[in-house]
């Protein structure tokens, strides 16, 4: 039996949050925000990583404004993950 993608985890009843690029249609993504130690322990940076379907975020480039769970961010990087069905957006909090 073939395995079909259900994308069930992109659900606001699970870990998903509502996102919107500019005035475009809303979509669901998953936001992670790990803390990273930089420069050999001199500084801390909270990273904002949004996982979403590539088809929802393919237009984003560095500087694109995006709202995630009603919080404003700008895109730093847009990186396809694995087979490219999903992408990881590295964000800066505005």
């Amino acid at each position, binding site marked *: 039996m073939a395995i079909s993608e259900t994308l069930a985890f992109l659900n606001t009843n699970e870990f998903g949050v509502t996102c919107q690029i500019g005035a475009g249609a809303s979509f669901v993504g998953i936001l992670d925000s790990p803390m990273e130690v930089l420069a050999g322990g001199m500084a801390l*940076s909270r*990273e*904002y990583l949004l996982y979403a379907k590539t088809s929802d975020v393919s237009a984003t480039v560095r500087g694109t404004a995006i709202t995630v769970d009603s919080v404003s961010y700008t895109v730093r990087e847009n990186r396809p993950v694995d087979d490219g069905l999903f992408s990881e957006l590295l964000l800066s909090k505005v």
Partner: protein
Amino acid sequence: MADTRRELILARIKTNLDSISGATVYRSRVEPLARGEVPAVIVEPVNDQPVDTNFFNKLDWTLRVRITTLVRAAIPDDDSDTYTQQVHAKLMADQTVNGYALDLTPDRTDFSLYEADVPLGIISQDFLVRYRTSRTSLTTA
């Protein structure tokens, strides 16, 4: 026990830099700084090298002091400029470090830029402080 000349110099440098506007000045801070804790300026010793003098009972020391400025901005080296020039001006305004040193000279400046939520800049300015102590005691000149 009295402070060494080296400690008096470092403490005085910290005092001289405390009035930098717009940044918090720390002495030898070792904990990482979060986004909300910068701009920050850190004063720390790097090394201290003695040499013999023409006076048999004296040592001349060269203390390397590092002043590190941390900023978070889109162009961090540009943003740091206002702080690094204040560091230079305030230290060069007291070149004998309240009379504890023979002189104080700027040495190298290094720039390190890092990707982060907001780009991080770490700019270190080294200063060489020459001072004199007794051969037998670090607390007396």
